[in-house]
């Protein structure tokens, strides 16, 4: 299974345990990745959205931390696109 260190590092901020507003989440995400790091998280997002071996629902559950409690794989994929990709790369299609 592939590893996604950038995603695993940032996804917890979306948990209700962190209780950040969407604006705070967006701001934190944008400010956390620049330069090489931005390229890396972009590549991770592209890869995971194509990754047929991984359960995105489980990935977003994060051992119960619940970055996002997706209803199904499609819901999980939509979350990654809308809440991460579109925020970081608003002018590009994933």
């Amino acid at each position, binding site marked *: 299974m592939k590893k996604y260190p950038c995603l695993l590092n940032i996804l*917890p901020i979306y948990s*209700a345990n962190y209780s950040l507003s969407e604006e705070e989440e967006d701001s934190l995400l944008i400010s956390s990745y620049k330069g090489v*790091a931005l390229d*890396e998280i972009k590549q991770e997002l592209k890869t995971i959205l194509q990754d047929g071996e991984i359960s995105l629902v489980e990935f977003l559950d994060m051992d119960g931390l619940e970055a996002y409690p997706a209803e199904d794989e499609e819901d999980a994929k939509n979350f990654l696109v809308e809440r991460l990709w579109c925020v970081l790369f608003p002018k590009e299609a994933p």
Partner: protein
Amino acid sequence: MAASRYATIQDTGSLADIGLEGASDTDIAHTGTERSHGVGNAQVDYRQFTHYEAGMLDEARATINNNTSLSPEERFEQLNRLNALACAEVRCAAGVSENDDFYDILTDLQREGEALKEEQGTDILQTLAALDVDTTYVTRSGRSSNEHDGFQYGVGDATNDIISDHEQIVARGVQAGQVVAGTLEVAGATGLCTTGVGCTVGAALGTVGAVTLAEGMDGLSKEHDYQSGERVVDSFSLEGHQGNYNPTADAVAEVLVNVAGGAAGRVAGRLGDDVVEALPSSNNPDVRLEGNAGDSLGARADAELGELPERSVIPRREPEVDQAAKNPSSDAEELSRNQLYPEAESPEINTQHLDLVTSHPNAHSLTRHGGDVTDEQLRHRALTGEAPDGHVKIDRRSGRPVVPPISSAFHSDKLLIETDQRIRNSSAFKDKVNQLPEGADTITLGPGDLGDLGQNLGRGYRRLGGSRLNPETQGAPQKLNNLNSAQGTWKRNSETGEWETITLFPVKAP
């Protein structure tokens, strides 16, 4: 001492069953000791507080210390009352020798607690309940689990206290056994089962089985250092807790090693005589109880082998030699007071460390997970999603409040800040920082990275039910005690270079 060995012992019935025929004498001896620990731990708790009980007392102290309506004097009074009642409940001084440096302190504390119980008709369980501390704990046996009450005192306690109270005699017997050659059938050792401790030894011999070891001769001439008082004092708080202690099991295992491996019967007999001589008079209800229960103890221990409490897997470490404890002086008293009131002695918070958890614009650790957060606020959050500072995360699609999986808080602000510092200084934190790609400046660490931090950091409530959007259908949330790990996120300030804490909250270690 590996925890896996405990697991092996928990699941099996005899030495042969666990495949130790080919193991070295030392291995077998260690296993015997560990198994005896398992037997003892499965019976009852000891005169020192168990790991769970220490956690309950820590939680109560945090509640008292965080009660801003109390004056410092009232706070101290409540802390003292808590310690005294806890001590009285398990008779914490009963296992301490009169020669022990802590004997007077613990005896006074126990008497004070007994007086409180008699005069005010209260006890530690009522006191903890009033402070909203859960006094139950769960043991596991295979797939089933059982709930128990803390602060109980029973047959095994009486035995442990008799041995512990006469530590020197037992130790001398063990040392003597180590230098006598010969062989004694294990069955012969059951001859010790005439009364009191001897019976316990005999019963447990049958339980543990035959092992061999010859350990050396130097112990005979060595003066014995008492440990019990220090261990009891340490056990009042998780901060100093040395792990669970079972002197009966230790004595049994060591005698067993000598008796079966090379000690002559007369040595075992002499040990038995010594111990019996040391017993209190036969009208002591504890001793009568032990005498009556002796024959059944082995069977009872066997029956309970499968129910090893979770706490017994905590590694038992040897106490460090403490000069203040070894040399009776006012230092010893000061040391014990510091250990009994760890929170009350050092309330100061380092302001620089405080700044690190409050300076980021999104920082909310103290307001949502700090020492001022009450259990009621945590319960409310677990039911409604509303954080203690009034913040509610709204689901973007449904527009409904999102209920977090866990609502937790540290016992105090100081503990939160200390934990933040511990994490910053840990190799896990440094590794995460080193692994960041260039241009990234946020790191997250969770229980998977940090593991058990070895401390009761806080408590909380777990949301029941699977839906985060329908809190009203989820019923009462589940209380989580003794949270011993943490989850947090830190962001580097590009101007100062400091890592600022966005959030940090206690969670259970995996």
